[in-house]
């Protein structure tokens, strides 16, 4: 029985122009759940880890989870998986909105794209009817234009996932955008899509998702929804203020990197770019994805001034990257830059952090003004927005910014000033002030990332337990649990934000009753650990660099704030981390561990 799954995978050969339907690999679905885990398993089984991420052999996989499209809370997510052109590591980026559920209602768990088309195409899916169509008229169009044109062409009820010119023109951190404003944003999955000349996927489905034990499943989901509704974060705080609410508390903790982290992590003007200010000045309303009662999305409008614009967001990470990291205290400029990222389909974390790196290079004299075309000092809001615009349009200095901070800083002789891990920019929390998040950045399988193991939750927010951000003891074990649980949640198709209010027992119960298994909570969590180790195996085979942090976090003491004098104590934590993972001291999964996880 296809409980939780449709049982069908689409395989699209872009070179031949063919579409085939094949049965889902049930064994893999059982072991790797779905979405991030199952997509990665398909990828690892079918692709050479040493393939060129910008070449024809890098497959691109869209994959939903068994809970995607069901009444499980906030279960509207899908993953896009490929080898990342930014990092060379396994790339998996997930997104909300409504695209994932629609794909399942059309009858497909996922889509595997192979090879490269000889002209721009899009994939049209209308239940059983699936075909590649010419997209020459869409090439060069931004996300909003592409979505509107496809809705006019195919029908308003179709859901659209697409790329913008950034994905077509070699920007290494282009994302896949769906429902206009939602992004599978990190690691350049849109860049891979552009290489394949695949402009978009449009889908409409009229089916539903079958579950094994409907009555029990419905009760699981209603109980979980009630818990989320009653929780102060998922029931009130996130809907009222969005993720930007974090600005003040992270800044108060001395952990919001300022000026590329050069000048510490206390931003004097933090309140000017906070969720409170966003709500008071620019918020029109909040917005939720499919089946979500949290509604953390922001619909915002800058009605006047030099940064007059309208769109969705920003999230906390973009608020930081275009704000404090660039020394910018103008929230309208931050919003404008963020809207540009949505319209042109790029990752705002990497974008803002790359501009911040360029500002530091400029101020130290390593980046000549003639290369940029204008002065580029920290705090210059107009220059920050201009850099974003140039990158979005692939013009002038934007072509260099589009390579990401590592390649740019290397070009100008200072790769150590790229605040990245495995060439992907770290987000909005300073690993010197919050020790565990530094370990997370170093060990994240997709490079610098916070949402592979969001230990900010216990280290700053006190959810579900309170741990001191300045100590290293116990952080390795805590992080492993968070990473494994996150891999599981991502693989089910649920949103990670549900874990602010519910945990493994609720998620495992929904999974059990959806797919019809009697596995224990621990057995189900083990699937998350299996996904993590599979990703690690891929990265080792692909020759991805070792787990470390930029020298700044390891050697430059914070100059002020509650973490004054601190650096990240990575080596202490890393040794313990490898131990609790059952890996060698060099960070290699042991044969015993792989056997225990059924990965050998």
């Amino acid at each position: 029985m296809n409980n939780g799954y449709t049982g069908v995978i689409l395989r699209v050969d872009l070179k031949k122009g063919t579409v085939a339907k094949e049965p889902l690999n049930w064994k893999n679905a059982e072991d790797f759940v779905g979405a991030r885990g199952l997509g990665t398993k398909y990828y690892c089984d079918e692709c050479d880890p040493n393939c060129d991420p910008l070449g024809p052999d890098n497959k691109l996989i869209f994959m939903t989870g068994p809970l995607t499209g069901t009444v499980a809370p906030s279960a509207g997510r899908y993953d896009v998986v490929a080898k990342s052109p930014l990092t060379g590591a396994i790339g998996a980026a997930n997104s909300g909105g409504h695209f994932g559920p629609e794909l399942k209602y059309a009858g497909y768990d996922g889509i595997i794209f192979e090879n490269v088309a000889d002209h721009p195409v899009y994939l049209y899916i209308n239940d059983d009817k699936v075909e590649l169509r010419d997209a020459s008229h869409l090439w060069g169009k931004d996300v909003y234009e592409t979505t509107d044109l496809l809705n006019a062409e195919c029908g308003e009820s179709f859901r659209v996932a697409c790329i913008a010119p950034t994905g077509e023109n070699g920007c290494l951190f282009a994302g896949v955008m769906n429902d206009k404003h939602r992004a599978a944003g990190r690691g350049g999955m849109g860049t891979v899509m552009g290489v394949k000349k695949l402009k978009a996927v449009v889908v409409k489905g009229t089916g539903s998702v079958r579950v094994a034990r409907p009555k029990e499943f419905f009760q699981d989901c209603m109980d979980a929804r009630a818990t989320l509704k009653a929780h102060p974060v998922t029931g009130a705080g996130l809907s009222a203020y969005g993720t930007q609410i974090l600005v003040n508390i992270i800044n108060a903790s001395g952990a919001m990197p300022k000026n590329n982290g050069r000048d510490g992590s206390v931003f004097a003007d933090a309140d000017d770019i906070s969720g409170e200010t966003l709500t008071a000045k620019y918020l029109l309303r909040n917005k939720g994805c499919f089946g979500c009662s949290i509604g953390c999305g922001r619909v915002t409008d800058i009605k006047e001034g030099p940064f007059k614009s309208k769109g969705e967001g920003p999230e906390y990470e973009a608020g930081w990257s275009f704000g404090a990291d660039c020394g910018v205290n103008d929230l309208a400029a931050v919003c404008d830059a963020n809207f540009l990222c949505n319209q042109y389909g790029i990752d705002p974390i990497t974008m803002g952090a790359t501009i911040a790196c360029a500002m530091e290079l400029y101020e130290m004299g390593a980046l000549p003004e003639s290369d940029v075309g204008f002065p580029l000092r920290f705090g210059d809001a107009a220059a920050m927005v201009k850099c974003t615009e140039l990158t979005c349009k692939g013009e002038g200095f934007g072509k260099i910014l589009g390579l990401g901070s590592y390649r740019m800083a290397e070009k100008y002789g200072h790769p150590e000033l790229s605040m990245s891990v495995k060439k992907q920019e770290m987000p909005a929390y300073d690993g010197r002030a919050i020790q565990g998040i530094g370990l997370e950045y170093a060990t994240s399988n997709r490079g610098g990332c916070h949402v592979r193991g969001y230990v900010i939750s216990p280290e700053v927010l006190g959810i579900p337990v309170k741990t001191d951000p300045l100590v290293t003891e116990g952080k390795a074990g805590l992080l492993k649990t968070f990473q494994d649980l996150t891999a599981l949640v991502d693989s089910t198709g649920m949103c990670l934000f549900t874990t602010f209010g519910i945990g493994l027992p609720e998620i495992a119960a929904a999974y059990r009753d959806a797919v019809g298994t009697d596995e224990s909570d621990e057995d189900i969590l083990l699937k998350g650990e299996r996904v993590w180790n599979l990703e690690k195996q891929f990265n080792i085979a692909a020759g991805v660099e070792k787990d470390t942090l930029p020298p700044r976090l390891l050697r430059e003491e914070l100059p002020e704030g509650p973490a004054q004098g601190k650096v990240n104590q990575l080596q202490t934590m890393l040794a313990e981390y490898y131990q609790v993972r059952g890996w060698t001291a060099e960070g290699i999964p042991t044969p015993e561990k792989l056997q225990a996880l059924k990965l050998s």
Partner: protein
Amino acid sequence: MTVRFFAYLRDREYANCKELETAAPATVRALGEELSQRFGKRFRGEFFSPDGAELGERVIVMVNGRRVEFLSGIDTPLKESDTVQIFPVVAGG
């Protein structure tokens, strides 16, 4: 000393301000009592647990950016040069 309020604790029903200056009480507990006297029952309900003995579950109190749980809890001593930050429980990412 300086006391800063965040999110809905800035609203009229609670502190009705972003920030205030006050003479430093002896401890965080004493500060909570003083602020509850000033702002009323709703603020007290957020700041203290139902029995009034501990901090409430919906509040985060920091002294100079350190959660009081990692100092001396609700009995953390205060001095004139301190900044106390009071947040409702928040999250994001």
